[in-house]
């Protein structure tokens, strides 16, 4: 590899890494816009569909916006009372759940105490697994203190997302063209090629994720409903979303189902049934869904994926774990195109070439 190529790649790699670090550090700032762009991307085919049938751009945008966000508003009107009732139900059973959970934790403590290494652990961290009312009260107090900031962040988020989505739908083409216009002629075609490839890959990733979440949520919910676990839909959707985190996701789904089983005081056989359901869903996911939908979106070695998830977790917590693989998948395209541009062999200066033939006018 030429020295110039290595230097170019090093400079580009450093700048790109800094950009990624900034993104992970300030992801809360970018999150509403990222969500809006994802929504815009999901609605784009409908926009094209309407425009191809002669509907004007503004009318098409308004139609999509009103039907989606209006529909969501109507859905929430019906959904919020249902969720409220669900919480009332949980609230009325909270004492039972707490007792079940405490006895579960106490049984763990008894098991741990009986082992030699466990007694060492207990000496240093007994508070962690002693579910006294003071401990539980402290946790509830801490959570309650965070509620106002969480609510304000959520309200800000849900007010920015529809606004930004509307303007992405309305002006994305203009913004994209305006930005491309700023690129110097020398790099114009490379940047255009890069943007097209990124858009294509982003589409594959998004469609793959949506498909995977839907199928895993449905299958998990169905399986959990069949074995008689409470709240199968909520746990199923939770498992479907957490399944987006490679390797760790399915475990999180199982733990969620276990938590419900513990709180509702289900018998021991329920835990085996939960494991069987998630095992079957994982087999289906890994043999049918993933190869079908994700093969185009990521072409990474399993070890690399695991490493990326760990790095993502260290940099951005759960969000980092979700974003690690898609970000690297998109970055690999950027590096491939930049590398092919930087590593092109040097050519003689065009204006130094000797002209040898007469002009033939059109």
């Amino acid at each position, binding site marked *: 590899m030429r020295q110039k190529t290595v230097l170019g790649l090093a400079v580009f790699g450093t700048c790109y890494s800094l950009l990624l670090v900034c993104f992970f550090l300030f992801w809360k700032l970018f999150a509403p816009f990222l969500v809006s762009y994802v929504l815009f991307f999901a609605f784009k085919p409908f926009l*094209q569909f309407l*425009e*191809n049938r002669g509907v004007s751009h503004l009318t098409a945008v308004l139609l999509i916006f009103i039907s989606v966000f209006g529909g969501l508003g109507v859905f929430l009107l019906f959904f919020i009372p249902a969720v409220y009732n669900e919480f009332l139900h949980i609230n009325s059973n909270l004492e039972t759940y707490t007792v079940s959970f405490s006895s579960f934790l106490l049984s763990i403590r008894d098991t741990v105490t009986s082992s030699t290494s466990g007694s060492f652990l207990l000496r240093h961290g007994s508070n962690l697994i002693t579910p006294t009312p003071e401990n539980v009260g402290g946790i509830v107090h801490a959570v309650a203190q965070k509620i106002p900031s969480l609510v304000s962040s959520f309200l800000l988020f849900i007010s920015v997302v529809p606004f930004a989505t509307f303007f992405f739908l309305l*002006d994305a*083409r*203009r*913004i994209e*063209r*305006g*930005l*491309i*216009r*700023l690129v110097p*002629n020398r790099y*114009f*075609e*490379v940047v*255009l*090629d890069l943007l*097209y490839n990124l858009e294509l890959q982003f589409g594959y990733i998004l469609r793959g994720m949506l498909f995977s979440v839907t199928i895993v949520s449905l299958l998990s919910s169905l399986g959990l409903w069949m074995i008689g676990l409470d709240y199968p839909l909520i746990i199923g959707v939770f498992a479907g979303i957490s399944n987006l985190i490679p390797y760790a996701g399915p475990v999180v789904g199982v733990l969620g189902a276990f938590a419900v089983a513990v709180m509702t005081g289900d018998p021991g056989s329920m835990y085996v049934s939960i494991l069987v359901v998630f095992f079957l869903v994982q087999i289906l996911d890994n043999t049918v869904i993933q190869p079908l939908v994700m093969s185009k979106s990521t072409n990474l070695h399993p070890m690399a994926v695991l490493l990326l998830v760990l790095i993502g977790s260290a940099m951005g917590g759960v969000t980092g774990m979700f974003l690690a693989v898609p970000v690297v998948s998109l970055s690999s395209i950027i590096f491939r195109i930049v590398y*092919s541009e930087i590593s092109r062999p040097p*050519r*003689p200066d*065009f*204006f*130094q*070439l*000797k*002209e*040898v*033939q*007469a*002009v*033939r*006018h*059109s």
Partner: protein
Amino acid sequence: MELAALWKNPFPASVPSEKMEVSFLSSVTVFTPLTDRQKRKVLSILHTRTFEPGEIIFRKGDPGVGMYVIRSGQVDVYNEYPDFTKTRIISLSSGDFFGEIALLNDSPRSATVVATVGSTLLGLFRHDLLSLMDSDPVLGMKLVYRLAQIVSERLRLTNCSGD
């Protein structure tokens, strides 16, 4: 870059004088079979680029992603040889187009094109054409069929000139 560019809106609300642009597209061989509505649609996927006199638009061997229509100005098309020589093949002006092979496949550019005077070009690129074929197959097919006609005609002329 002029200082005024810093506060100038880089995303103008509409393309200036769309009617004029549509009538210009009517004069370009590739777009003549299209209706006005289809021309407006094509116009929405074209990229306008301006080049200084003597600026290289692309060089032989560069990866090609699309064709250019000359809106105004003049360009020279050159062939480059390994013995450090070049041959001017043709001079093109307003209404002419070049680089159409890159629309149909992803082979490298087969010639070098240089703007001889300040020129404004309209770029039509492969990915936009593919998206257009997805979203509006009738228009996409019309355009690709026209391009195939032009490329085959140019191939026939090249073969005849070699006889």
